[in-house]
């Protein structure tokens, strides 16, 4: 009698615990908005572009107004399912436009040419050769791909600690403060959407390089952006760097950014 009463009480206790745990599990599992499995991510094919270290040269002289920047941002956002959130705190940005003195704080002199002052500057992940974000990540959810130097993100491994965001001196990383899926204008099923609670950033269009295409922003820039192998002396980027004076963001920090600017 006694032991069976104890047993019933134990069961009651356990089931109430399970009931209490339900909302927790539900919260973990719940995710509003379309989350259908995307089509398989493209694997590198025969046309895949390769490099030792991909790099970008931005010819800022060719950017006059925001209108020159918009198509680039739009191409990137639509391909990568970058959501458009109204709350500034929750913004997700892969590539965006800023002022000279924001892109290059510390480099901007008190008096600069009016033209440069008003020129839009494109900023994105620098795919640093010595990336501090990779050092900071406690789960290797972000890493530097050895084959071509792209700094990548695994959205499924990221625990959302945001150490990489604190470590990045370029503000290149965004965090999904809420479920981004309802805010994607038109879902591109060829690229994964993200869930709340993970970090994301520019991936140098790794999925396009794999099938022989240049990054989307480079493609739509009509020559304003150049892309190529930094360690190939004959590449277009090296040619531009050789023939123009270029600067990089926060070079003194030793992260070795792979994005060069012609000013």
């Amino acid at each position, binding site marked *: 009698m006694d032991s069976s009463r104890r047993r019933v009480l134990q069961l009651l206790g356990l089931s109430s615990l399970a009931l209490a745990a339900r909302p927790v599990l539900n919260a973990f599992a719940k995710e509003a908005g379309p989350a259908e499995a995307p089509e398989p991510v493209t694997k590198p094919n025969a046309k895949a572009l390769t490099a030792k270290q991909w790099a970008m040269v931005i010819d800022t002289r060719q950017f006059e107004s925001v209108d020159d920047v918009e198509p680039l941002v739009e191409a990137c956002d639509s391909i990568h399912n970058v959501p458009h959130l109204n709350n500034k705190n929750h913004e997700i940005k892969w590539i965006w436009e*800023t002022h000279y003195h924001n892109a290059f704080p510390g480099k901007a002199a008190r008096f600069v040419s009016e033209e440069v002052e008003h020129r839009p500057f494109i900023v994105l992940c620098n795919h640093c050769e010595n990336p501090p974000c990779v050092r900071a990540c406690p789960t290797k959810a972000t890493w530097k791909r050895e084959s071509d130097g792209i700094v990548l993100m695994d959205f499924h491994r990221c625990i*959302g600690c945001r*150490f990489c965001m604190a470590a990045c001196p370029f503000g290149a990383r965004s965090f999904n403060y809420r479920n981004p899926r309802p805010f994607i204008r038109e879902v591109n099923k060829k690229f994964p959407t993200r869930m709340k609670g993970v970090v994301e950033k520019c991936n140098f269009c790794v999925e396009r390089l794999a099938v022989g295409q240049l990054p989307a922003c480079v493609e739509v820039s009509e020559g304003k952006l150049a892309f190529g192998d930094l360690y190939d002396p004959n590449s277009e980027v090296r040619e531009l760097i050789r023939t123009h004076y270029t600067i990089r963001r926060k070079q003194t920090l030793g992260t070795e950014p792979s994005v060069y600017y012609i000013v």
Partner: protein
Amino acid sequence: MLELAIKGGKKYYGWMTFLLVIIGVGFLLYMRQLDFGLGITGLSRDTSWGFYIANFTFLVGVAAGGVMVVLPHYLHDYKAFGRVTILGEFLAIASVIMCITFILVDLGQPMRIFNVFIYFSPRSVLFWDTLVLNGYLFLNIIIGWNVLEAERNQVHYQPWLKPLIYLSIPWAVSIHTVTAYLYCGLPGRGFWMTAILAPRFLASAFAAGPALLILCCLIIRRVSSFDPGREQIQALAKIVAYAICINVFFFLCEVFVAFYSQIPEHMDHIKYLFIGLHGHGAYVPWMWTSMALMLIGIILTVNPITRQNEGVLAVACVVIFLGTWIDKGLGMIAGGFTPTPLHEVNEYIPSVPEILIALGVWAMGLLILTALFKIAVGVKEELHE
């Protein structure tokens, strides 16, 4: 010994119920955060760490502060502290549990926490922080529990505990050093990029931790028949006095370096906190209050007349605890993120749910602390009967 924690009067249960209510509110809001995402906080793309991580940082200090009773007792054989070492160790346990909880509530994907162990990354300071924090928690549970049990049975504690006790002393220093390394090794964050950050964290830790311990001793004397002792409280007060002086000194060193060198990257964060930047200055009144509180704390604890008056000392401890909390728990993190690496000012203000969740974590820590202290005091009372 656990049974001692449930033998209490009405006041004890009233206090515990009160804490449970706050925990409940925090827990419900945390459910909301799990559901919606960290968007219910005031955090942003620019200020990606805030109130949770700030409280975590402060509490690592309180946890490390426990070593200030352990060290004199075991290394210098300062016998008087034998009466209160258990309080220091139990304070460390409750604080570390709060720290770990603050980290958990700050994660975007908390159910993936074990990725830290599965894909262990020795180059990440966060990996080391996980190790030292959990290690310190276990050390204090093992040491505190066994020493108290031995005391209850009126025997000497097991000899194998001794090396663990010695280990726990540098370990306490390590938890706050590693926590400082989370920040001071990041390129492009001028406010944190200072070699003095870890020493500064330790100084404020050794002020805030013992100050809280003094307050606990004074409360314990009131609500139980166990007196932690006047000598003990006075010795702790001297530790607090030295530590708070060193903390303010370190801060002034930072101010000198930033403002004599005139390097904008280092100056701008301090400017933002103390005079405001580009028209944003939400933290200005808080930071000056913090300075004033720490200064009052110095005056009250350094001066022997005020220090020896336990009523005044209690005020001094409250003042120092609050002052160091604002300094570290409010200014240290927000100040490091503002202005941003792109030199924009996007002010971070913690949201109400965020503050309530943090309060819930504090209440949980206080609940654990109360239960642990109840056990410790229960044992002491048994022995003195």
